[in-house]
């Protein structure tokens, strides 16, 4: 099972690792909240690939898959909240003068 093939667990893991790294890279280099969120999504997906792969090759059963499903659910929840916050901020700027708004830095 050397080489990169669909029968090989490692190939999936490597795939996951690559996704993870890309997600991390996004988070690292992006200054933009939404881009960072995208990076997070990549990370989550990489984890999910691992889970499903392990479910398939390592543990058998569907525990891993279920884990993945939950991750997806929570990702959705988080995204919803995140968007709500962005919206809130967006709304604030309609009403208050931005040049006067100070940021969190003391």
């Amino acid at each position, binding site marked *: 099972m050397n080489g990169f093939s669909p029968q090989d667990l490692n190939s999936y893991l490597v795939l*996951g690792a690559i996704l993870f790294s890309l997600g991390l890279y996004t988070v690292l280099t992006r200054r933009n*909240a939404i881009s960072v969120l995208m990076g*997070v999504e990549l990370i989550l997906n990489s984890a999910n690939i691992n889970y499903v792969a392990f479910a398939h090759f390592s543990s058998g059963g569907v525990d891993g898959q279920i884990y993945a499903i*939950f991750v997806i659910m929570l990702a959705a*929840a988080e995204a919803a909240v995140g968007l709500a916050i962005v919206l*809130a901020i967006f709304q604030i700027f309609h009403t208050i003068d931005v040049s006067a708004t100070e940021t969190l830095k003391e």
Partner: protein
Amino acid sequence: MDLGNLGSLDFFYPESILTGTILLVIALDLVLKNKRVVGILSLLGCFLALGATLQLYGSSGGWLFQRMIVLDNFSLFFKLVALAAAILVLLMSLSSREVETLHQGEYCAILLSSTLGMFFMASSTNLLMAYLSLELVSITSYILTGFLPHNRRSSEAALKYLIYGGVASGTMIYGMSWIFGMTGTLDYAGIHQALFSGAPNRVALFTAFVFILAGFGYKIVFVPFHMWSPDVYQGAPTPVTAFLSVGSNAAGVAILVRFFFPAVSQVAPDGSWRFLSGVEWPQFLLMVSMVTMTLGNLSALGQQNVKRLLAYSGIAHAGYILMGLVVLNNEGLQAMLFYIVVYLIMNVGAFLVVVVVANATGKEEIQDYRGLAWRGAVVPAVSMAIFLFSLTGLPPFAGFVGKFFLFAAVIKQEFYLLAVVAVINSVISLYYYAYIVKVMFLDFPEPSDGQIQTSPGAGILLGLLSCMTLVIGIYWGPLVAFTNQSLKFFSK
């Protein structure tokens, strides 16, 4: 004892009560006009849950819901802490101007669900449950942070918090996935069994642990996962800040201990823990602990905003608390539990004072505390002094006893370097704590500074908390016994 879903319900009252309360609150919020009732109601719910929890405390313990969560004194201890935090914070909220403007119903509901999340964090024995509960607490925390309407500070803090949270938990589950891959199971007991029977790859395991620590550490707020806390603490409504500073910190400790001690370490009869040989996460934590307390204290030095300062001091205290972990024995854990209780009391107290002052002046800068003692706010000033000195760790206050036990544990294990670092840190910390005290007592108010009224409720609560700080500082026998008893992990 290993119960199925139905059987578990008998041991599930506290959670059920909380859930019920949450739903009730949401429902009532739609019909009721007088929002205060909601607060009272949720308080009632908390007290009920408290009663239920106490009633369960000391029972033989066991697995519930197909080994999803566990019932033992350890988890119950943290449930009690979470409830105590919730109750205090609700009381605080009732006397806080800031909160009055909020949607009481949602506020309470979210607060309670956060508490519930902490319950599960303390008791989950399954990677999935751990992740879920963590997320529950996180998401609710984001919401609470962003709760202040029309307040950029608050919203920005929330967004920041959310993003850090996402990254942290993402990293964590990636780490968890490796554990799952190596052991083929999500269940702690299974993991423990697999790890200690087989010969897992140390490097992989270590990497996984580090990733998982990211998720936990971000709740406990230790370096380098602390960067969100100052902004969030400053941006969030003060009661929420208080809640986060004690509640999620404690819950984080709980979940961390739960995973790193019973799951991946073995306890020797003499109460000292043996970690997997070759996977030196304790050393990692040792460094983290030193860095955390030092960085926290140093950053606190320059702060002018009380909440921000308390945030940094919170980071420092997270460092102290970690001391109890790295010594890898029950004295250490016990000292840690003790410290968590003490920290809960004094920190909530401190934030309550912040609320009182903010109610009167609407400001949170240290300068706004000028001559507090001479502005008709003797009770807040004095109790603030008590809390701060207690945080410094001076006798005869509770904080001293807490630090004392931590030092004791550390020195017993001959971690002299850590002890010295901690000692120097507590001296440094004196500097900024005493600075606030100085401003409150040694400076005299300018004519511009108005008088400050304390609502009777807040006054009583403050008196209560400072008395507790003092009493525990002088007679802590019972509390020690309690923490001692709470150090029971259920396994088999």
